[in-house]
């Protein structure tokens, strides 16, 4: 793999502010070097810290909700507090954790490296979107302290315009977070279009980047609708304009249309990045190219487009006309096709590969296991007459947790373990990571499989209390949540422990052919010593030399130029 001197594309602080070849963590020191940083890697790390705190907070509320449901009647808190807990769990997990988790943290860190760029297209805009995120978090926290919201994360009207709590500050926080999301999306789109290193054609784009690209499209196009909806909600509450409240002549179902017009694409904003990570993990640990690369890449785009056309399936019993119900059901069915294509291609990739049972691969395989369940239970909910019975029950709760947590969170954890050496320069303890995985996998299934059964038996969502026949299932689910928590803490500990006890990570510990492993560990400030010229795809294990899979590019390029010419002829 050759590296030639090509003028850097895009501006970078490295030229003016430091040595581009120094490791990004130590190129500059001191707290202010982090506060003012425009380096996409540092911003990615700061995002990672924030979303981890959000995950901890959202997870704590989840555990409290489960604990309250352990027994009938009051277990730990009263009904109003319970309603706040599940609202906070949902709002924090959706808006503060899962939407920014993969794109803003891992995407920010790896998208530019994976296309051979020095940074994102607009580094300062990237910094702005991080601080907007922080402001959004502060506003949300303020609304929690100042009265709390009990509407559920969906803010359905007219309850949300009547309830006395701080719905407006909460939705304003979400409004600000939306801008952060839009800016990140915009940045990624421009980066992928303009900053690809020579040789990174669209057909050599890593699938993680394809996923981020599809996600960015949705973020840019869908998030403004959420902003509009929340502004209308604010106008209604402040000025009494009748938009959604029937007492003022509004229509509460209109709010649901607006809300899901954003929030359904948001579901794909959450899952497509998870799928994107999974493609990387499956390829690396099978030592072979993803089967049907083009189909997998296009299925991400397909999901992004379909995501805009199916919002009505949240409202099959909400009072829509039969005609729209029919259309939305038909369109919803189509979602199964790109999802299925991904599942089939990942599985086919394993065939005749060389499968490494490393901890990230365990998460990747559990993604396939859990997302199969999450996806297939979607068939029940897309089928109209069956959905009538199942909607708004725990069946739906279990379904979207299998997709969101079984999908995105599993991929996120797998991605963290996978890229941790590259990000921090330290190796984690594989045994501890695998023990953590076993607890996460068992705990997760116990928690949510019980919810499928009680849901199909008729247990509605968002209930503080329940009929006696549901108690065994609630108990199993709560116990599952504790096992899950043990697994997550073990995994978190494993990652943190690596920072002070971990061995120095080699350049390419997993033997991947992916571009991001070709540079030094930890990554230099400018990502690569020289702008790389790419002559093979990111999954071309048969073209990658053994040295490459062990030590990456720069060390090769420092050796005689003979190699350089022989590689250059292979170009494309």
């Amino acid at each position, binding site marked *: 793999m050759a590296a030639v001197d090509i003028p850097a594309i895009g501006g970078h602080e490295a030229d003016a502010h430091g040595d581009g070849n120094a490791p990004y963590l130590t190129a500059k020191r001191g707290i202010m070097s982090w506060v003012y940083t425009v380096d996409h890697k540092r911003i990615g790390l700061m995002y990672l810290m924030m979303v981890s705190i959000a995950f901890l907070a959202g997870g704590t509320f989840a555990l409290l909700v489960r604990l309250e449901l352990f027994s009938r009647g009051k277990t730990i808190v009263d009904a109003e507090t319970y309603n706040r807990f599940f609202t906070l769990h949902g709002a924090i997990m959706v808006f503060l954790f899962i939407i920014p988790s993969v794109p803003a943290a891992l995407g920010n860190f790896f998208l530019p490296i994976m296309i051979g760029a020095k940074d994102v297209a607009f580094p300062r805009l990237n910094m702005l979107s991080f601080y907007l995120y922080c402001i959004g978090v502060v506003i949300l926290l303020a609304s929690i302290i100042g009265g709390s919201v009990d509407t559920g994360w969906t803010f359905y009207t007219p309850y949300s315009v009547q309830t006395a709590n701080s719905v407006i500050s909460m939705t304003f926080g979400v409004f600000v977070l939306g801008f952060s999301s839009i800016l990140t999306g915009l940045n990624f789109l421009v980066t992928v279009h303009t900053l690809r290193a020579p040789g990174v054609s669209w057909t050599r784009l890593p699938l993680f980047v394809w996923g981020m690209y599809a996600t960015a499209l949705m973020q840019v196009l869908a998030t403004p609708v959420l902003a509009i909806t929340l502004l209308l909600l604010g106008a209604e509450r402040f000025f009494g304009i009748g938009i959604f409240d029937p007492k003022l002549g509004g229509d509460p179902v209109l709010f649901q249309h607006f809300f899901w017009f954003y929030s359904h694409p948001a579901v794909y904003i959450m899952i497509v990045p998870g799928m994107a990570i999974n493609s990387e993990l499956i390829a690396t640990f099978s030592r072979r190219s993803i089967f049907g690369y083009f189909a997998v890449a296009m299925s991400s785009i397909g999901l992004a487009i379909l995501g805009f056309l199916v919002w009505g399936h949240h409202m099959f019993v909400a009072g829509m006309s039969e005609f729209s119900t029919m259309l939305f059901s038909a369109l919803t069915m189509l979602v199964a096709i790109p999802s299925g294509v991904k599942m089939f291609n990942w599985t086919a990739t394993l*065939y005749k590969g060389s499968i490494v049972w490393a901890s990230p691969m365990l998460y990747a395989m559990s993604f396939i296991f859990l997302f199969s369940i999450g996806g297939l239970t979607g068939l029940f909910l897309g089928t109209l007459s069956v959905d009538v019975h199942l909607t708004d029950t725990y069946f739906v709760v279990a379904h979207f947790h299998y997709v969101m947590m079984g999908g995105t969170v599993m991929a996120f954890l797998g991605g963290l373990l996978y890229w941790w050496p590259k990000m921090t320069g330290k190796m984690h303890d594989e045994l501890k990571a695998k023990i953590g995985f076993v607890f996460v996998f068992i705990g997760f299934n116990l928690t949510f499989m019980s919810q499928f059964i009680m849901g199909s038996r008729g247990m509605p969502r968002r209930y503080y209390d329940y009929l006696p026949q549901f108690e065994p299932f609630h108990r199993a689910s709560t116990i599952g949540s504790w096992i899950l928590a043990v697994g997550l803490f073990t995994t978190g500990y494993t990652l943190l422990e690596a920072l002070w006890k971990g061995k120095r990570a080699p350049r390419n510990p997993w033997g991947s052919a992916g571009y991001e492993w070709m540079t030094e560990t930890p990554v230099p400030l400018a990502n690569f010593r020289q702008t790389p010229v790419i002559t093979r795809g990111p999954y071309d294990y048969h073209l990658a030399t053994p040295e490459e899979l062990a030590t990456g590019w720069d060390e090769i390029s420092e050796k005689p130029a003979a190699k350089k010419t022989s590689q250059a002829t292979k170009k494309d």
Partner: protein
Amino acid sequence: MNESNAPATYQLPEQMSTVSGDIDWLYYFIYWTSVVLFVAIVGAMIYWAIKYRERPGHKPTPTGHNMPLEIAWTVAPIFILVFLFHKGFQGYMDLAVAPANSIEIRVNAKQWSWEFVYPNGGSSPELHVPEGKPVKLVLTSADVLHSFFVPALRVKRDVVPGMFTTVWFQTTHVGHDDIACAEYCGGRSTGANGELPYEPSDDPRNPYPAGQATGHWAMHGMMFSETEEDYAKFLKSIGDKCDQFATTGKPCPADIAAEQGQKIYSNKGCLACHTTTGVPGVGPSWKGIWGKEEATNVGKVKIDENYIRESILDPQAKIVTGFGPVMPTFRGQISDQELNEVIAYIESLK
């Protein structure tokens, strides 16, 4: 049409309506399709992950292309999906179009109770329907979104303020099931003196006793599918006994009026917030309130006919100190005669 009176299975509740057989058939069709697909994908994944595990001397084969296979697994699911869509929509239309001869029952939902108003004008907090007869419910809400859900009937419909939604069903046999609210509608656990007690009961008819912390989960009702005779008897029992006096022009005796008032107290859902034991709930208890002087947000008020009347029709006008402005108005939902009966009932609770 599939048989529609199977007992509960591990996954699904008992079947009680004519549509439930078809819906459950489709449920189990999807279930077994999913099981087959899941076992195929996950089975292949585990088998290959073990068979082709990394070990010395084992080399991966570079990935090739297989266009026919790619096309096959893109196109094949479409057949299943079209079938599911078709069956699902068919079932949905069965649920959507009520037969012309349906018995029409009006449903008023409010935080946090159901009221069912029958063709004879009587009402009850429980739903009684004749076995084997089509019944159409016309639903509306006085405040926020609710959703009418009876698991055994396999029906669910959101109840939206400002519009009417409908749901219809025909039961297949005599029996009963729970009515649940399936759309989150808030909750309250504070009364006049802080937190309300909360202790669920084991009585399946009334699992969430009145006068306690209440909300979304406590909007529980019962649906009774009865023989025609029992249904006719029920209709008679909810008719207003004061009616006969009204037609003769004589005043309704106090004890009969109070008895009617007690029915309204439970039918219209007053009991969700007002106890008759003296313990304050979300609203003041009715026990011993008659004739008392109470402090309100507009000064002292004597609890008499006029105050009660005003509080029912315009609840926000004078609010007893210590309670929130949370009661919905009953204007248009309660007749003058019923108001008098409620007043007579409160008077009887001295």
